[in-house]
């Protein structure tokens, strides 16, 4: 048989071969590809510091890319450091929108927009703004910003809900069309948005800010091309993509050949809890090639918990990047040696019009975790523990002094723990693996909305045990001061998402509760609500697997369906509590140095009981009232660990 020779590595190309391939020298290609990343980052900083709405200003819910011209098939050599969920979809979004509109129909001064999940991924609130860049009359590429708009119409204010049943309830769908022509606003396009969406007074300045940052990106790109020449620029675009294709190819080749299977699932959809939604993944590795087969996964859900095919593609690319090739930049070349076998019509490749897509990350984050699970044995010490997975997102809305308000992923779970790695303990207050955002400031939340954030803290004994500890679950309590409507969206409470790796243990599962005003008054002490059984007994479960009487976490208890009350209409002084899932541990907990276990007890990551049971470390003292007086009983610890070790053999 003919063995196809692997291509020569880019670093092994001599100067002439490099120049022949990329139309510039190696140094220039490196400088230019860094310059492209600088441009997208600059565009993001411009939007972040000048945006008006909470979701852009306080959440960083946007991303920026540069794409090459149509004749190169729209390669994406540079993506911003912001929202990962957008970076993968945007590599295809620009091609799909421009090809449908027709690249020949674009002119200097145009801005194209599109927000259809089935065409460009994510959800209708995320509008992709595309600015064609012309150099001496030639279309040489695109600078792009995809940003979350506060509202896009539909039956739910701000859109966040797992209960919408089709595209018609979901919100306004915008096929590719011009928002600016000849640098003048196309009024009909703006009216289309303003006539269908709420909060137009915030959308207008946000979109204008986006437009100015597209112009910033265009100017920076044109300056770059002016200085280095268009052929060098186009060469560098290809160089950047080839380089990340090459590092992924090398990373795949380092894995053993084989088939690796993983699975994860979400609890149910917004209709009822009769059907769980499972992702099944089989990763096949042959040399430097991979095929990620998602056959056997569940059909689409009946409500807007679904994701789309480009969201699935993003999750695969990001999972492989995290696990195998984290050190080179993400580009459209990342998936060159990877084929995804994706059945259409699953809950992460939903189809119109009834496969409504909104909480797309809730479906694709389990897909990412299923790949993490599939590869954890093959990766050995390089495996990464699972994170909290479900954002447990919460949105509330109401009217105060005649003015409507809406919160945006601020008072639910939203932030939580990651899983541990060989490098150390996991962080406990992050956004899940498929995102990279900010944490909205409590002061801003309380200034903007009629609520008080009572707790935002780590929950004891929720982190996955390990030689390196997983992150602890986050508990967030919010007291609502006026009447309000709430949408609550926890989707991964039936089983832990924060799985342990390399001998580490799983993190705990979370849940959501609400205390009605009378219950809140009864259980609060100086305004705060505690954690004992008597307190939970007064609560109404929102979601989670709980004891039906005491409402405390109980894996043999009953599942409370998150959408059995689709909209919680509450009276003043109602309190919601969100508890996220915990992150997975890495390595055998019996090998964690006792001094670090002591510190975890002092910091209330774990209790004295857990130190003994899971870590085999005996600690004496009172962490609540004398944290610095805690002591390790080394002799008892050694005896306990020896006994535990001999039990394992």
């Amino acid at each position, binding site marked *: *048989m*003919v*063995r*196809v020779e692997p291509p020569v590595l880019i670093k092994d190309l001599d100067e002439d071969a490099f120049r022949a391939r990329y139309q510039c020298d190696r140094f220039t290609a490196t400088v230019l590809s860094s310059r492209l990343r600088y441009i997208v980052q600059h565009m993001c900083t411009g939007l972040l510091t000048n945006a008006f709405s909470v979701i852009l200003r306080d959440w960083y819910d946007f991303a920026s890319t540069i794409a090459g011209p149509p004749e190169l*098939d729209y390669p994406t050599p540079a993506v911003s450091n912001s929202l990962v969920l957008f970076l993968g979809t945007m590599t*295809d979004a620009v*091609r*799909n929108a421009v*090809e*449908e509109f027709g690249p020949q129909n674009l002119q200097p001064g145009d801005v194209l927009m599109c927000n259809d999940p*089935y*065409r460009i991924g994510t959800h209708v609130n995320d509008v992709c703004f595309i600015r064609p860049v012309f150099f001496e009359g030639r279309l040489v590429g695109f600078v792009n910003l995809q940003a979350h708009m506060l509202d896009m119409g539909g039956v739910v204010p701000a859109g966040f809900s797992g209960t919408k049943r089709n*595209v018609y309830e979901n919100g306004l*769908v915008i*096929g590719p069309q011009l928002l600016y022509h000849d640098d003048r606003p196309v009024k009909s396009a703006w009216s289309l948005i303003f006539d269908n969406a709420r909060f137009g007074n915030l959308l207008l300045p946000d979109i204008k800010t986006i437009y100015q940052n597209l112009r910033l990106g265009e100017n920076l790109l044109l300056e770059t091309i002016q200085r280095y020449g268009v052929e060098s620029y186009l060469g560098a675009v290809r160089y950047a993509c080839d380089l990340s*294709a090459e590092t992924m190819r090398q990373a795949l080749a380092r894995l053993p050949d084989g088939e690796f299977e993983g699975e994860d699932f979400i609890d149910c959809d917004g209709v009822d809890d009769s*059907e769980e939604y*499972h992702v*099944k993944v089989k990763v*096949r590795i*042959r*040399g430097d*090639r*991979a*095929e990620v*087969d998602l*056959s*056997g*996964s*569940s*059909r*689409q859900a*009946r409500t807007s918990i679904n994701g789309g*095919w480009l969201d*699935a*593609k993003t999750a695969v690319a990001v999972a492989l990047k995290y696990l195998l090739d984290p050190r080179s930049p993400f580009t*459209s*070349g*990342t*998936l*060159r040696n*990877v*084929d*995804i*076998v*994706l*059945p*259409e*019509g*699953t809950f992460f*490749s939903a*189809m*119109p*019009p*009834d*496969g409504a897509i909104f909480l797309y990350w809730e479906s694709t984050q389990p897909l990412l975790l299923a790949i993490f699970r599939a590869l954890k044995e093959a990766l050995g010490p390089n495996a990464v523990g699972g994170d909290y997975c479900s954002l447990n997102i919460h949105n509330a809305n109401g009217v105060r002094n005649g003015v409507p308000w809406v919160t945006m992923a601020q008072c639910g779970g939203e932030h939580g723990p990651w899983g541990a790695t060989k490098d150390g303990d996991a962080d406990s207050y992050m956004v899940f693996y498929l995102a990279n955002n900010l944490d909205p400031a409590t002061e801003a939340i309380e200034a903007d909305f009629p609520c008080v954030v009572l707790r935002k803290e780590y929950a004891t004994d929720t982190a996955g045990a390990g030689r390196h500890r997983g992150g602890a679950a986050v508990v967030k309590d919010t007291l609502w001061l006026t009447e309000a409507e709430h949408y609550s969206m926890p989707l991964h409470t039936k089983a832990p998402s924060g799985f342990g790796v390399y001998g580490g243990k799983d993190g705990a599962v979370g849940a959501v509760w609400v205390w009605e005003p009378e219950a809140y008054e009864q259980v609060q002490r100086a305004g705060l609500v505690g954690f004992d059984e008597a307190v939970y007994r007064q609560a109404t479960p929102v979601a989670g697997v709980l004891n039906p009487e005491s409402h405390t976490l109980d894996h043999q208890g009953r599942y409370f369906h998150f959408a059995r009350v689709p909209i919680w209409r509450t009276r003043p002084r109602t309190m919601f509590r969100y508890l996220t899932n915990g992150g997975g541990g890495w390595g055998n907990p019996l090998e964690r140095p006792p001094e670090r276990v002591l510190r975890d007890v002092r910091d209330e990551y774990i209790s004295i009981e857990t130190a003994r049971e899971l870590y085999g470390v005996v600690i004496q003292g009172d962490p609540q009232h004398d944290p610095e007086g805690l002591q390790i009983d080394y002799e008892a610890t050694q005896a306990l660990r020896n006994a535990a070790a001999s039990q394992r053999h």
Partner: protein
Amino acid sequence: MSVYPRSSEPFLFVHKEPVQGQCPECGSHNLRRYPVLSEGGWWLVTKCQDCLFSLERERWGRLGSIQLLSETL
């Protein structure tokens, strides 16, 4: 947008159609044809199932099998 109803089957699979021939790289006769998603979007590939070598890769629908009604204008 055209209409794509929810499947009556709870779990979904990609059909990999058997193809006659031999893999030029490893000699296997286990060749299949099916759509995949990769760099550049959807591709209809003819692929060796043993070594994952692609004998053929041609563009598939830009949106997979989703058809825009407006494309029929």
